[in-house]
């Protein structure tokens, strides 16, 4: 495969009730990414936007940010899914040979709508939507299933939250930098057992942008291109009851593609830093297993061992992760942005020393029905 690199990145500060409109956020990150790449909008050959009609309260929601991303000037398309899928789309356009420098922008403002209603709409209107299923209580069903099967404790999940909110203190973009303890998490307001407030990600507004280029352009333009060495995406069945919610085969399948492309045989040793999409604390544990950082059912022990702490051999979510900021659609792209910064050595106070191989991960749908994973390298 011809090489594709990420040559520019940009993100907004993540917060609730960002007073900027959608297009203002998109304009901000587009310009940040261009500045980071040392380019102007005239250098962008085509674009991929990631918007969602429900979250934006608008049909053809991509129109909201068409002008702000320069997309009315160039061929453009819109992926309705996490930003990690948008980057995949951008890659297909470059690798086709028909497009060159590609801008990918993802955004949403969770604070403008009613997230419970918006995520209730994920569920089948002729079947179980009527039960009031939404992102939180469906995740709780998965958490309970996973924890019961493998004996994972609420304390182990809480450790994820403690770690990530603490990591967020070093990330100027994060919404929720917090000094909390396991006790704080366990005694926080219960939402849907076993998920408590501090086990859950916040409602956020935010946008991210990345600029992709083929090898010849990247080498010409960019001092520190970050190569996409591997990518994979995969989807599980849809109905919660059809799935084994504790199973991570879908993530394993997606990441195997990425690892094979990148030549990674022993991820636990070869990946230096990982940014994963943990919308809830238990998810980080499940994704550790799916990514091959430990055996099935052993992520609780891995967490206890400190392996994924900032001082550990494989820091996970130095940025604070999705628990610290959850701008839907942008959150997966933010994982890629953070991975890029790490590999470039530009992650400032949250830098993992010597990191040259990063894993970035995004999810889609309820309980991580879909996964999209990247291996990024200097």
């Amino acid at each position: 495969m011809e090489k594709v690199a990420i040559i520019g990145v940009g993100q907004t500060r993540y917060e609730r009730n960002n007073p900027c409109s959608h297009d203002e956020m998109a304009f901000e990150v587009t310009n940040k990414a261009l500045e980071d790449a040392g380019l102007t909008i005239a250098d962008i050959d085509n674009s991929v936007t990631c918007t969602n009609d429900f979250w934006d309260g608008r049909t053809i929601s991509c129109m909201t940010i068409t002008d702000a991303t320069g997309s009315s000037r160039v061929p453009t398309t819109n992926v309705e899914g996490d930003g990690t899928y948008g980057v995949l789309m951008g890659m297909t356009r470059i690798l086709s040979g028909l497009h060159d420098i590609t801008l990918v922008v993802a955004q949403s403002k969770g604070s403008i709508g009613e997230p419970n209603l918006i995520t209730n709409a994920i569920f089948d209107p002729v079947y179980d939507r009527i039960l009031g299923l939404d992102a939180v209580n469906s995740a709780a069903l998965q958490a309970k299933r996973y924890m019961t099967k493998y004996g994972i404790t609420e304390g182990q999940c809480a450790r994820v939250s403690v770690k990530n909110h603490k990591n967020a203190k070093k990330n100027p973009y994060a919404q929720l930098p917090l000094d909390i303890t396991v006790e704080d998490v366990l005694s926080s307001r219960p939402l849907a057992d076993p998920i408590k407030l501090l086990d859950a990600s916040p409602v956020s507004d935010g946008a991210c942008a990345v600029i992709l280029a083929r090898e010849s352009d990247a080498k010409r333009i960019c001092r520190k291109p970050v190569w996409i060495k591997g990518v994979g995406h995969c989807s599980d069945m849809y109905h919660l009851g059809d799935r084994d919610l504790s199973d991570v085969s879908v993530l394993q399948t997606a990441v195997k593609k990425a690892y094979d492309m990148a030549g990674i045989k022993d991820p636990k040793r070869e990946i230096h830093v990982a940014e994963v999409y943990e919308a809830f604390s238990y998810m980080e544990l499940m994704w550790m297993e799916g990514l091959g950082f430990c055996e099935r059912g052993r992520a609780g022990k891995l967490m206890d061992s400190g392996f994924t702490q900032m001082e550990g051999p494989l820091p996970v979510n130095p940025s604070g992760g999705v628990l610290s900021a959850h701008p839907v659609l942008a959150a997966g792209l933010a994982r890629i942005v953070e991975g890029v910064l790490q590999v470039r050595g530009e992650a400032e106070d949250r830098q993992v020393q010597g990191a040259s191989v990063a894993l970035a991960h995004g999810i889609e749908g309820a309980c991580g029905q879909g996964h999209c994973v990247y291996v990024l390298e200097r």
Partner: protein
Amino acid sequence: MGNRVSIVGVGQTHHRSKNTECNGQELIGIAVRRALESTGLTMNDIDAVVVGNMDHFESINYVDMWSVMGFGGYMKPVLKVTTGGTTGSAVGHAAFYHVASGLFDVVLAVGWEQNSESDTTAAIVTHCEPLIERDFYGGAIGGLAAQYSMYMDKYGATEEDAALVSVRDRCNAARYNPYAHLRKEITVEEVMNSAYISYPLRLLHMCPRSDGACAVIFARDDKAEAISGKPARVLGVGSSHRSTYLGDEVGLAGLHSLEIAAKEAYNMAGITDPYHQIDVAEMYLPAASAGVSWMEGMGFCDEGGGPEFIRSGVTNMDGELPINPSGGVISTNCIGATGLIRIGEGALQVMGKAEARQVPNVEIAAATGFGGCFWSDVMILGSSKYLD
């Protein structure tokens, strides 16, 4: 450089105003099964899926995940594209890019819509910018009506010219296309007697809203030959999503984005004389008036030449450049599928599998997509003799 890509299979439902028997997933299943059957492939042979529809017509969030049921996408890479009216064509283009990239060899494109499940106009109006446009846009027809008004004023086109397009497309559907939604022949007189919806557009100038699904299978060229004896090669693609606000689209009379997208696609395909080189066109005309005012955008005639072009009859089934043998969008409009149906119909023409609606000796077909606000996609398909 990228791989060359062909279309090897097409499937679609029998479109209707209310598909009462099926839910959306079942509708998708029918189209996908038909596409697979036409090629002898199974889902095991599919490397990735691209799906599209417009969310607010069915109120299902994350349709990429929901529709996995409908097309057997368990353990498959799945991705959703949504760009409004162009969704179907954008899905087709995305599937093309998936294969052209070399990352996937055989990709299934699925477009679908069950418009009967909602109030289509109310849902469409939500595309308008909430602060400025939403209160008075009036649905999809507003912009199209305004556009044809300008064209009539500028070039002397008439409502009767648009009626000729209605008659052409609806009669094609009635006579030749068992999959079309509206299959009743009409006359110019009937069109002119139908009520105004939004001047100058009348009821019989307009597309219906339909329930339906379409599936198209794209494959790398060397695999395509083994799958289908006569695949339809993708020779060119072009896309332009220019304006967001109706008021920004100055010079409304034609369709500027179509002109840009067509030029891009023609360039890639090596088309220099579209009128003579293209054998059939499946065009996304949401209203019959577009069939008059958008001809020049495709380079089929000179600027302002739309009326004469249509009046000459060259776009009829027995003409030199048949347009919409399938009956087009004013016979069937399941929005998320519609743009993909144009691609599928174009491919069937090149593959020689268009049955009663087959135009003889098709070597090159054009398929266009359109969406609010004035966005255009173009794909050029050709037979094997165009592979260099």
